[in-house]
């Protein structure tokens, strides 16, 4: 099943500076897993040590947060778009 991952600016540098990438997967979790396999630098930004989705990243299918459906096990259909919505903060000199 082909699923499009929509990548926000904050994460694009870890995904070959692309705004969207198409991957295969039948659940949200498997699609994001396939995405992280393609771009190893992004993995640590999406998954923690226990392979759970990080608490500063939300994943939306349409206007629904997968947290409110079935988390990473939420099924996806061919042609669905998964939007990554990370926490953002501008202006600090932290990095």
């Amino acid at each position, binding site marked *: 099943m082909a699923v499009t991952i929509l990548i926000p600016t904050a994460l694009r540098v870890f995904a070959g500076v692309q705004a969207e990438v198409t991957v295969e997967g039948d659940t949200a979790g498997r699609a994001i897993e396939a995405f992280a396999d393609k771009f190893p630098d992004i993995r640590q*930004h999406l998954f923690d040590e226990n392979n759970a989705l990080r608490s500063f990243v939300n994943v939306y299918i349409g*206007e629904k*947060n997968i947290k409110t459906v079935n988390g990473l096990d939420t099924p996806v259909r061919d042609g669905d778009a998964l939007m990554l919505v990370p926490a953002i903060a501008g202006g600090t000199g932290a990095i």
Partner: protein
Amino acid sequence: MSVIPRKRLVELSAQEISRYSRHLLLPEVSIEGQKRLKAAKVLIVGVGGLGSPLALYLAAAGVGTIGLVDYDVVEESNLQRQIIHGTKDVGRPKTASARDCIRGLNPNVDVIAHNTNLTSQNALDILHNYDVVVDGTDNYQTRYLVNDACVLLQIPNVYGSIFQFEGQATVFNAENGPCYRCLYPAPPPPGLVPSCAEGGVVGVLPGIVGCIQACETIKLIVGGGAGLSGRLLLFDAWRMKFRELKLEKDPECPICGEHPTIEELIDYEQFCGLRQDEEPVDNITAVDLKKRLDQGDELQLIDVREMHERAVFSFEGAKPIPFGQIAQRTAELNPSVEAVFICKVGKRSAHAIRVLREAGYTGKMLNLQDGTNAWARDVDTSLPQY
């Protein structure tokens, strides 16, 4: 529906009636809405990119009392987007500069300058006097502090945040709606997500997002309309696209959920991981690197900056591998030769070293301390610090 109870309404003078006539001509605002605006007390946390348009529009709209919290002074690089401050204000406290600007715009506004950092010690004292809090902060520790204080005090929190070309806006904690922790239970660890200082921000973006926050604030005060509570608005200035996502209250939320575990303000620096020491890396100063290069030591220099930064100036002899590609391109490094990692301020390069270590890279790695900015300051002063 308005956050201002009827008993607090105050009369408008004849001069105010003519000044705000374009509001009074709107049945949704009318004279009563304008009286509510006059009675309202709004706190703006952060008088920067978001706080600038916010403060200006709220002052122009006739909000009676505007509190400003900020401890920073105006810097020249702020002026690209922080339009409440002018060139003559560089070096002044942001609260003082903003107060002068608001007074020039609308002398009816009572401005309260809180020239301090918001902390767990002073937040409740400062916030409890206000009807609406507007979050224009640029860092996670203050954002969680503002969120928690607003939940504890039951004050609506008008939220906005920005990064490069993208913005988010919503209203938290209004009419029993979700809070920031419902959306993001914890912040990214420091260093994981780049900030505007290295990431940049298009100056007009906080103008647009700040104006959305000002609009939501006015609606909360006047009452009516469809507020953003329960909806997360995403804005992409480069593609000029707005999107709207559903935002639901999390019953498990530690502060606004059914069984809250946070009942008072906590240590937000610790919560955001700022007290944790990051895994140390070996540093080399710009001067020492220069010495080693001059004496002909074999080093592989790795520039982890982005292409557009290398366009400002390229680091002579360095191989470019952008920060976001380090794990993927490990094979391009030679573990038998000492490597020096270079970025703008020495943070991304240190993180690149940690990523490589974790990936099992065995070669010796050094971090150029304070990055190309140190090189430009201490070694080659013909180069710019940026």
